[in-house]
């Protein structure tokens, strides 16, 4: 059962039970909705952008432990970053959870997000781990339609 612990690391379980920045954001000037039709996960990501800096960010919604923890930790890591920096982290994160991280690549940018590396062993859960990130991306682009992982 070691693989299971790779996926459900304590940090992930802890964030899924007590998600950070889990609220509406009155100061938000960007917002998007993300939906994973396969499992019914649904999140709204709120962003308060100042210039191209993410001054504040929050989320709300329902989903599995992986998607919720990912959303929670995402809000922590991108807060205070520029849009470009956030997108870059998303790129690295995506590579890691899909098992395409370049060999010898630095994980420092990902910081605590490396707890999601076990997701690469569970291909059907990649969408769960990336849903919040896709939604953030849509919010930053100012897309109106809800994003879907399909």
């Amino acid at each position, binding site marked *: 059962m070691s693989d*299971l612990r790779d996926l459900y690391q304590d940090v992930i*379980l802890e964030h899924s039970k007590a998600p950070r920045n889990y609220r509406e954001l009155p100061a938000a000037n960007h917002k998007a909705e993300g939906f994973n039709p396969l*499992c*019914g996960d649904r999140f709204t990501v709120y962003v308060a952008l100042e210039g191209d800096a993410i001054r504040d960010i929050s989320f709300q919604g*329902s989903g*599995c*432990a992986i998607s919720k923890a990912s959303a929670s930790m995402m809000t922590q890591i991108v807060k205070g970053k520029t849009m470009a920096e956030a997108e870059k982290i998303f790129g690295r994160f995506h590579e890691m959870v899909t098992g395409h991280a370049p060999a010898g690549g630095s994980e420092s940018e990902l910081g605590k997000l490396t707890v999601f590396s076990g997701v690469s062993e569970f291909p*059907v859960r990649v969408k769960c781990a990336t849903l919040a990130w896709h939604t953030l991306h849509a919010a930053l682009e100012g897309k109106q339609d809800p994003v879907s992982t399909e």
Partner: protein
Amino acid sequence: MTSAARKLDGEKRPVSATGRFDVERVRADFPILHQKVHGHPLVYLDNAATSQKPRAVIDAITRYYEGSNANVHRGVHFLSENATEEYEAARLTVQEFLNAAHSREIVFVRGTTEGINLVAQTFGRAQVQAGDEVLITAMEHHSNIVPWQILCDEKRARLRVASINDQGELLLDEFANLLGPRTKLAAVTHVSNALGTINPLKRMIEMAHSRNVPVLVDGAQAVPHMKVDVQDLDCDFYTFSGHKVYGPTGIGVLYGKATLLHAMPPYQSGGDMISSVTFEKTTYNQLPYKFEAGTPHIARVIGLGAALQYVDGLGMENIGAHEHDLLAYATEAVSAIPGVRLIGTAKEKASVLSFVIEDIHPHDIGTILDQQGIAIRTGHHCSQPVMERFGVPATARASFAVYNTRKEVDALVRGIEKVRQVFA
């Protein structure tokens, strides 16, 4: 094999010397069951999505391709005659299985979804006009919602929905009240895939007929678990999928009363469905060929025939009794686990155990069970309105077939305990 030998013979095999139903003998018929998944024996509890196939079905398909493959209804040569005979023998098997009055009332389609779409596109388009109504229930699969929605949009007709109660049972009075002068069709499920509810179909059909409303039945989840007699039910259309009743995917049946099928315009057009074509005029073929345009999936039809024969060999009463025992056993054991809530607690249920666990998302339940070799379905089960009715985004669903055992239910219960440990 002659067509006579293909008749359902009613001889029941899986009963051991002691006269008890012998599930181990049934399991031996299913090659796929004897494997390990993630180091654990496979426990396959996703039967409402699709059932596994017995050796008899796999062999029938192989035998057909190795010995009889040819196009049907078109050749004078030996193989074509053989293929046609086997194809038509399967139709007789289906006729007998559903107790239809005539074999021409049995139309082969891709599955339940196509059966419903066929009726919506032919009968529906001809009968439903602006201001008319189509009545469904709140427990339908998307495939018995969307075709009617599209038809109603196109015709500016109205889709009416009869509600269900907190147990997941249809409100019969409401159903009766919604059968109005403008109702052109009632399209209802026999058994709910998300809840397991068995609808009181015969009464519903009587109610509808007393108001001259024809009834289409989605039988996808019923046919694997109970004897269906379309003449006794007096339904106007009945459709099911082969793959949920131990047959191949991509093949299913639409039963329709001959008088209705006869009056309906064709569905798809092309070869086989015509009797004569000139550039001025086409005369459609007789039933059921009018609705079977093009070269059909011959091997799958033969596989389906073999599946229904297999089911008949086990005996539907034996299957129903065994599954009923499993469901009762599982219901008691799973509902006793702290934090578990069952979704769908109708008095009359078949083979489906849908549940949620407090503070644990069904998707996580599914992954953790899978790591123990246990296959269940998680999600909305193509029944989003049902999920909404119960205020959950998704459920975990274990569904049983004739080859499942109490030991497998025990494994499920241990698996759920493990889920709770991971999240403790």
